[in-house]
């Protein structure tokens, strides 16, 4: 059933995400073309000014597009959760022969995939914007150098670099899941009220995010104050600090996931208030 839930979740969300990706890539290509035209003195002064203005406008749109791309998976996930579970569609969704755990898991998996896809599209657009064909030819050598530098770092830090990359990756994945669960929890609690559902949800979102940020800052200070960090600086000391920090961050994120998951589960099962 999880596979089927994921399939239908992708079907419901891809109709929004693919056009966003396609639009962003198209905007990037048009901006790149405008950049190319601006850098060449075709025609008279007016033509150059036209392309320069066009490029400026497209660049502004591109910056907004990047921001939209960052937010799109979270916003889509929130809207989808509200519509699919807490509004009229909930009468169908919540009477499917599946547990709420599988339902939430399918949503979290699909949301994480869209975050990854958005990241890749963002990286691709930045690559298109910032490189030329001649730059691209140097990429194999660049990646070779990076790999070689990483290998040397890995040797000198006795596998510490690889572990750190793994920790950062896991922290990003869990961070995405925590953000999504915070939104789900806020909606689940907000929609359990009979009135002012949206307003309560918005307030809860702010409160939950603030709580997580305060806990995160507290964690950072605690690790920074630890004895290990007060030692004289060295590559090993910095790596040790980074490992401690990300280990604590991962534990904190796991705890946050558990808390917001339980809130979401409780309110979508015990306190469900479909209109």
């Amino acid at each position: 059933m999880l596979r089927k839930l994921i399939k239908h979740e992708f079907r419901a969300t891809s109709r929004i995400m693919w056009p966003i990706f396609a639009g962003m890539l198209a905007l990037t290509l048009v901006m790149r073309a405008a950049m190319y035209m601006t850098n060449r003195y075709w025609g008279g002064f007016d033509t150059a000014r036209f392309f320069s203005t066009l490029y400026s406008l497209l660049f502004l749109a591109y910056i907004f597009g990047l921001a939209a791309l960052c937010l799109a998976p979270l916003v889509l996930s929130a809207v989808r959760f509200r519509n699919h579970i807490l509004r009229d569609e909930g009468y169908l969704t919540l009477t499917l022969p599946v547990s709420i755990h599988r339902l939430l898991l399918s949503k979290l998996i699909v949301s994480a995939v869209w975050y990854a896809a958005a990241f890749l599209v963002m990286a691709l657009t930045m690559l298109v914007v910032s490189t030329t064909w001649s730059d691209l030819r140097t990429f194999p050598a660049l990646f070779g150098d990076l790999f070689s530098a990483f290998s040397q770092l890995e040797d000198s830090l006795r596998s510490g670099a690889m572990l750190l990359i793994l920790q950062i990756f896991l922290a990003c994945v869990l961070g995405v899941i925590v953000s999504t669960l915070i939104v789900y929890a806020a909606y689940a609690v907000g929609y359990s009220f009979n009135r002012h559902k949206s307003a309560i949800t918005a307030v809860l979102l702010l409160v939950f995010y603030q709580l997580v940020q305060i806990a995160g800052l507290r964690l950072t200070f605690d690790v920074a104050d630890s004895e290990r960090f007060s030692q004289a600086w060295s590559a090993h000391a910095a790596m040790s600090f980074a490992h401690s920090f990300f280990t604590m961050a991962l534990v904190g994120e796991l705890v946050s996931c558990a808390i917001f998951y339980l809130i979401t589960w409780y309110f979508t099962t015990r306190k469900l208030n479909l209109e």
Partner: protein
Amino acid sequence: MSILECKALTKRYGGKTALDGVDLAVEPGRIVGLLGPNGSGKTTLIKLANGLLTPTSGEILIDGRAPSPETKAIVSYLPDRNALPEWMSVAQTVDYYADFYADFRRDAAQEMIARLGLDASGRVKALSKGTREKLQLVLVMSRAARLYLLDEPIGGVDPATRDYILRTIISNYNEDASVVISTHLIADVEQVLDEVIFLQNGRVERHTSVDAIRSETGKSVDELFREVFKC
């Protein structure tokens, strides 16, 4: 074993009691009218049976089990509103039901959809309110479920659509299954019912067979309903 059973079932919303110690049992193979005025607790009872609400006290059992994914697999539920995603096409709604319900009869659904003259590639959003209700009913009745819970299936539709809905229910339900129809439009459903449950202020006022009402009181269900719920 009863397909639907309530034991001292109570549901409160804050200070308001929607269901108050309801005891009832529905046996397999019966078409039951869950009748009562607005606010009598019909929808609450159906929501509880579907696991959309949790009882305050008492219990509700479907085939001897509390509502769960297992009971949802044998219950076909028609809510009192359109729950089909508006962005889906008609064909996608059929795929959705076919994917999740093992007892879904795709052929029956497609035949009924064709008879309705619906374009399979058309979006739900583009359908009229009445046609959406018909589509939803077609999907619900295309399941070979053991219990059909139909919440106000004929509320707010024209007489011709009412006839279509009742015809669809009678000609498509699994005969070993039970059908619970919640409504306050008694006259329209009376001819298809085997028994009735009168709900008033969250309590079961009467649970009896339609034949017993006719033979004992000499009245139709509609006449008795008007008498019991006289304002």
